[in-house]
């Protein structure tokens, strides 16, 4: 019951920003527009919702969609013991999302990971570099069009 109230409250508070709100399989989820992110996050971080923790931040690649990348955020509220999933779509030609580093410190590494794996850029990130792959790596491995076995050795291999 509580889940629907927070989703409805968010819909009422941000009629333009929140595109859709639902709870598939019990996970409260809102789909928002890309430019509403910086407006909604501070609201969620403060009382009464207090989503003080950024659990996870990742991305899903849908090459066939018009807006290719879908960012997925999982927030957690220690006070209310509940999770919230936020999704937003990003087109490939303008793959830039607002950075959340100013709200959560772990967003730094998580955003670097998404940049590394998908090539989505983050506006306002202090130090956007690859996290896992080496600097000279070409391409973004978790994109669907990157072949699974395309290796880029850093040193010449024997045989």
């Amino acid at each position, binding site marked *: 019951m509580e889940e629907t109230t927070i989703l409805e409250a968010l819909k009422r508070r941000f009629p333009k920003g929140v595109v859709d709100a639902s709870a598939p399989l019990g996970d409260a989820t809102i789909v928002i527009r890309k430019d509403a992110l910086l407006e909604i996050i501070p609201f969620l971080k403060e009382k009464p919702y207090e989503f003080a923790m950024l659990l996870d931040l990742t991305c899903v690649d849908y090459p066939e969609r018009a807006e290719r990348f879908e960012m997925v955020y999982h927030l957690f509220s220690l006070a209310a013991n509940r999770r919230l999933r936020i999704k937003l779509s990003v087109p490939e030609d303008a793959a830039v999302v607002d950075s959340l580093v100013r709200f959560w410190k772990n967003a730094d590494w998580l955003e670097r990971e998404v940049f590394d794996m998908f090539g989505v850029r983050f506006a306002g990130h202090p130090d956007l570099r690859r996290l896992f792959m080496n600097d000279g790596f070409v391409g973004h491995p978790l994109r669907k069009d990157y072949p699974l076995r395309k290796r880029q050795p850093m040193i010449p*291999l024997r045989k």
Partner: protein
Amino acid sequence: MQGNFITTRLNAMLGWGRKYSLFHYPFVTACCGMEYMSAACAHFDIDRFGAGWTRFSPRQSDLLLVVGTISQKQAPVLRTVYDQMTEPKWVIAFGACAVSGGIYDNYAVVQGVDQVIPVDIFIPGCPPQPEMVLDGLIKLQDKIQKTKQDWRWKKQRS
């Protein structure tokens, strides 16, 4: 005739000495490290086979244990560590990932450390049981005993 006899004996003696005083450098990256810890600790006790002395400096060790997955990013590091070791030196590839890349046949993983450095013994298993590690070690000792020892302390391998 006389000279050959002496060199053969000396060769055997050097081999005997070398095989029971392996100072190993565990290049631990991944899961296999847990089984390496088991093998090195009290239950399985690698020390019984003369390889108890773990040196965490490549300069002071003559056996390199490559324990775990070597990613493309890690390969130059492994190469550097190997180059820093002094002759004579041996390498054991420990676990399926080090042997062949194991289950990770993808963009990030080197398909076997023999693509980076020469390897003497391959120990398969994901991860290998400590008994297999000890078996691999004994096989390496046999190999050391049987090879022609480089007793003039001159660099032979490239």
